[in-house]
């Protein structure tokens, strides 16, 4: 589904990713871990299409298409959705407008008709209650005045409505208390399916107890230096990142 090949990315002149390669197949859940400054968030930002990241070499293919040639919204319509570490507040734009506009855009891209208002409302209400969110969220401006936990739940709500093929979660666990974490994790887990993939970027192993990954990668200094299964995450938790680095150098 997603193939990242020898990706080099510079930000403001300094190289952050130095030859990152990663393949994600449908049905898989991947966790990208690593110390601060390793380039974890850079990868998801580049995949989503954020400005200010220069790809100097390498390639990203999504379902065989050259992702780097696609507009930001085209990537979303192709089925990639990024859950932000710091979801932006959008004063004046109601959540319900965002959800409707986004879903319409997707349906149109797939050649489907707009969902009639009652069906749309039914869908949204169902997802809302799954995320244990109040109906009033829909009338509130996107993320405006939301607590950290509410913002993260809102990101997952958007994913539940939009049903992406590849869900990327950038530090989705940061700023969450244990109850919020459980709700977010349940939301993410409900997305797991044969034809969907999930890429989690995280600093801590904590999240991975709730969303158990199939593959764990360790990103150090712009490259994946070690990959393994969920046990690798446990090992990192107890031993830290140093040994991986030493091992990779040796």
């Amino acid at each position, binding site marked *: 589904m997603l193939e990242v090949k020898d990706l080099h990315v510079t930000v403001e002149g300094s190289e952050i990713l130095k030859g990152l390669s990663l393949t994600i197949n449908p049905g898989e859940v991947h966790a990208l871990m690593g110390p601060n400054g390793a380039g974890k968030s850079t990868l998801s930002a580049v995949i989503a299409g*954020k400005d200010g990241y220069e790809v100097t070499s390498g390639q990203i293919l999504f379902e065989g298409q050259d992702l780097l040639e696609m507009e930001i919204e085209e990537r979303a319509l192709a089925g990639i*959705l990024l859950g932000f570490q710091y979801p932006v507040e959008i004063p004046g734009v109601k959540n319900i407008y*965002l959800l409707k506009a986004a879903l319409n855009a997707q349906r149109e891209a797939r050649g489907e008709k707009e969902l009639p*208002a009652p069906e749309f409302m039914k869908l949204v209400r169902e997802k809302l209650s799954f995320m244990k969110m109040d109906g009033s969220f829909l*009338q509130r401006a996107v993320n405006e005045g939301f607590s950290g936990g509410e913002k993260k739940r809102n990101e997952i709500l958007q994913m539940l409505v939009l049903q992406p093929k590849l869900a990327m979660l950038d530090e989705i666990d940061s700023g969450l208390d244990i109850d919020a974490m459980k709700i977010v994790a349940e939301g993410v887990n409900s997305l797991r399916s044969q034809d969907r993939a999930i890429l989690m970027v995280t600093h801590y192993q904590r999240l991975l107890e709730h969303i158990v990954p199939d593959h764990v990668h360790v990103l150090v200094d712009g490259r994946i230096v070690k990959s393994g299964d969920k046990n690798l995450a446990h090992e990192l938790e107890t031993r830290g990142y140093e040994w991986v680095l030493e091992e990779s150098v040796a």
Partner: protein
Amino acid sequence: MSAAHAFLQRLGERFSDEPTWVTARRQAGAARFEALGFPTKRDEAWKYTDVRRIAEGEFALTDDAELSASRFEALSMPLDAYRLVFVDGVFSTALSDVEALPEGISIEPLTTAMRTNHEAIGGAIGRLAGVDFSPFTALNVALSEEGAVVRIGQGVVVDKPIYVVFASRANEAPRMSHPRVLVMAGARSQATVIEHYAGETGAANFTNVVSEVMLERGAIVDHYKLQEASSEDLHVASIHVEQACDSRFTSFNLNLGGALVRTDLVTDLNAQGAEANYNGLFFVQGRQHVDNHTLVNHNAPQTFSNENYKGILNDRARGVFNGKVIVKRDSQQIEAYQNNANLLLSDRAEIDTKPELEIYADDVKCSHGTTTGQLDEEAVFALRTRGIDEQMARGLLTLAFAGEVMDQVRLPAIAERVERAVAGKLPERFNLADLVEVSDALQEA
């Protein structure tokens, strides 16, 4: 020969057989206008607004009010309202609807009011805005022929909005009109008055209106000025408000059209408890120029004003906001708040904004703020990552910016019209009206 003199000369003998006192009034207006001349950029109040297009234009006064029902419908809002319609300044009996007025309300064209109620109207007209306020009010006095007169008796709550439409036709040659609006709201009365300036595509006329609104003790007036002139129309308006104690005046100054637009809005808060709320929104593009000058005079203690103006400018459009608050000596315990925010959608759009506070009392609460910026690019990015295309994302955010003012609008028909005008520039494929429906359905649920 001055431009002002030439401007008046072109009218020839139009006003030859009028009563002496009317002639005298015109002459006073004309003399004042000639003495002042058209404002230039050297006049502080006109520093950013060049009126040469008016001064050098050749405009004829109009004699007919011909406008088919379908052309009128295309311009106006289908409101359940008492309606007075003027076509290029001329009263249209056919398009107006002021039958079956309840007791205590009078809504008439100015000429009728002057004929039948000279005593009540003659003194009030021009009391708040005479020949001295600006060259354009002087010009209005010299040339005004028609207008709307609304009188609401003591304690009367008007059951429907009073809808005054000024239609500007696509004429063969440019026309001009100098209408007057007079609203006299009796003690504890309540009314909503809408002045709607609507221009047909291709209209290139000059409108120079003066409105006076008088609120007696405890009166509540909502005043809407919805300006949708054509992209060639020239529009100058001067709105003057006088408030007695405990009265509340709420203005919505909504400017969407016009090539050159200038509005002056002046309120005198003359007694304790008087409150003025100014809400303004302008959305300009192409080479449109919109200038809003507002003034609140806190002439008495414990008076309140609250002002929020928002501007959205695209292309090479230009906006001016000048908001002045004057707190007179001994006007203690007043509150005056003012805010102006502008959104520049293009690098070549320009806004000149200037809040001015003059405070001669010491126990007051005043604040003012002004911001000018672009759309939040992070928000644009966030929306695009959800599959919403860039144009739509920018449209949604633009609408959101206007939302703060539009949320205050109490007439859904107007809110919808303005929202559509702003959102209408969005690609058709996302139906915002449909989104509004969803939102409404949700609130009902």
